[in-house]
């Protein structure tokens, strides 16, 4: 006897398969396990090599003699120092997810009501976890060592595309939110498309939310300091929302 089919369980199964595949592709924990017993120097070298291979960073060396990692923007707060918390406290007007509020999260950046939030949570197994909420439905997290590996010697890190609401990725103007974090001296971030005008987030302070055009292929993000000096470029051509745009009502070709 065949058991009746339950569509919602199939759909939920697809979601968990997607999440599992993402973890399979970026096995932070297993990487730590592999290098867990190795000297820290090996870990640092491996992390840098991995960052160069995986992250698609352009060869734009930081021009400052003293490098302040993005991780330094969060490390003190993660360690329990509340004197210099990142971002701003949440207000009633922020559309922060409930779990971000419950965990005393902070608002790093906000554009058109879409926020980038950060929370810290103490765990017994992995120490204090730093989690970024990309809008209301997507989050990325890890402990400070995980992040330090990823942030090391970078002025700009792309966290990814988030969602405007559960199951809503693109707004009525054909835009999607693109999130990232920056070192403290970064004051603006420019998104360059393959063609056409670029989009700039000014007054950047620790992170950004760019409402990117889902109808155009992206090329790169460029971080600048207050003097207009270019600090870092990141390839974002892998973030391509055009297929999703075609399936979204109102997201027509320009």
């Amino acid at each position, binding site marked *: 006897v065949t058991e009746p089919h*339950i569509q919602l369980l199939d*759909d939920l199964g697809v979601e968990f398969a997607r999440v*599992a595949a993402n973890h399979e592709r970026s096995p932070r924990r297993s990487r730590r396990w592999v290098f867990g017993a190795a000297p820290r120097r090996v870990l640092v070298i491996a992390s840098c090599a991995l960052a160069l291979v995986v992250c698609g960073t352009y060869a734009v060396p930081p021009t400052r003699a003293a490098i302040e990692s993005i991780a330094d923007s969060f490390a003190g707060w993660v360690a329990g120092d509340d004197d210099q918390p990142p971002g701003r406290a949440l207000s009633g007007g922020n559309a922060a997810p409930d779990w971000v509020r419950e965990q005393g999260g902070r608002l790093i950046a906000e554009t058109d009501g879409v926020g980038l939030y950060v929370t810290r949570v103490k765990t017994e197994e992995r120490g204090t976890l730093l989690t970024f909420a990309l809008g209301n439905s997507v989050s990325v997290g890890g402990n400070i060592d995980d992040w330090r590996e990823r942030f090391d010697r970078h002025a700009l890190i792309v966290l990814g595309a988030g969602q405007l609401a559960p199951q809503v990725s693109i707004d009525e103007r054909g835009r999607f939110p693109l999130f990232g974090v920056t070192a403290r001296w970064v004051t603006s971030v420019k998104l360059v498309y393959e063609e056409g005008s670029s989009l700039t987030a000014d007054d950047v302070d620790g992170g950004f939310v760019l409402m990117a055009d889902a109808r155009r292929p992206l090329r790169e993000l460029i971080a600048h300091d207050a003097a207009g000096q270019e600090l870092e470029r990141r390839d974002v051509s892998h973030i391509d929302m055009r297929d999703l745009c075609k399936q979204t009502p109102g997201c027509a070709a320009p």
Partner: protein
Amino acid sequence: MARTPGSSLRRASREPSAFADVYSAYSRQLLIFFMRRTFDLEAARDLTAETFAQAFRDRRRFRGRSDREADAWIYGIARNLLSHYGRKGRVERKAVERLGIQLPSIGVGDYERVVELAGLAELRERVSHAFADLSDDQRLALRLRVIEELPYAEVAETLRVSEQTARARVSRALRRLTDVVDLTPPSPEVTS
């Protein structure tokens, strides 16, 4: 080698994709488990999703090997969430949100199938009989506290008894109704 829920859960700690076997083994029975206790498919869906999200998040904490240990671990998460739902009146979604899980919509066909699978019609009838079999005192106490949602102080005042007695009557009534609902989790399906 046969893939059992226990071995799949263990394997998922180093191979996240193995979690698919865990999901296959438990998803249907967990949805029904929650449906029989909440009578609400949306809540049952959310509780099922959060159970798997927490299991996925904490999969490295599973130290067992056998299917029985896997059952106990998964249903431990499920019962905790159900308890939270009972106390707070809302489903905890922290792990679902943290993993970015999108909850699927519920079709009319799904609702009918799950109601049938959960045997809700029969369960409602059994609960109804059990409710009718309660003593008058217990039935009234339960009605005031659970259906009319009065605080215990008001329940006691209405019944002209002490608050402690009111609590005891509600508690005994709930226990008798709970006996009607099978709280034993079903055995998981085994994939191979």
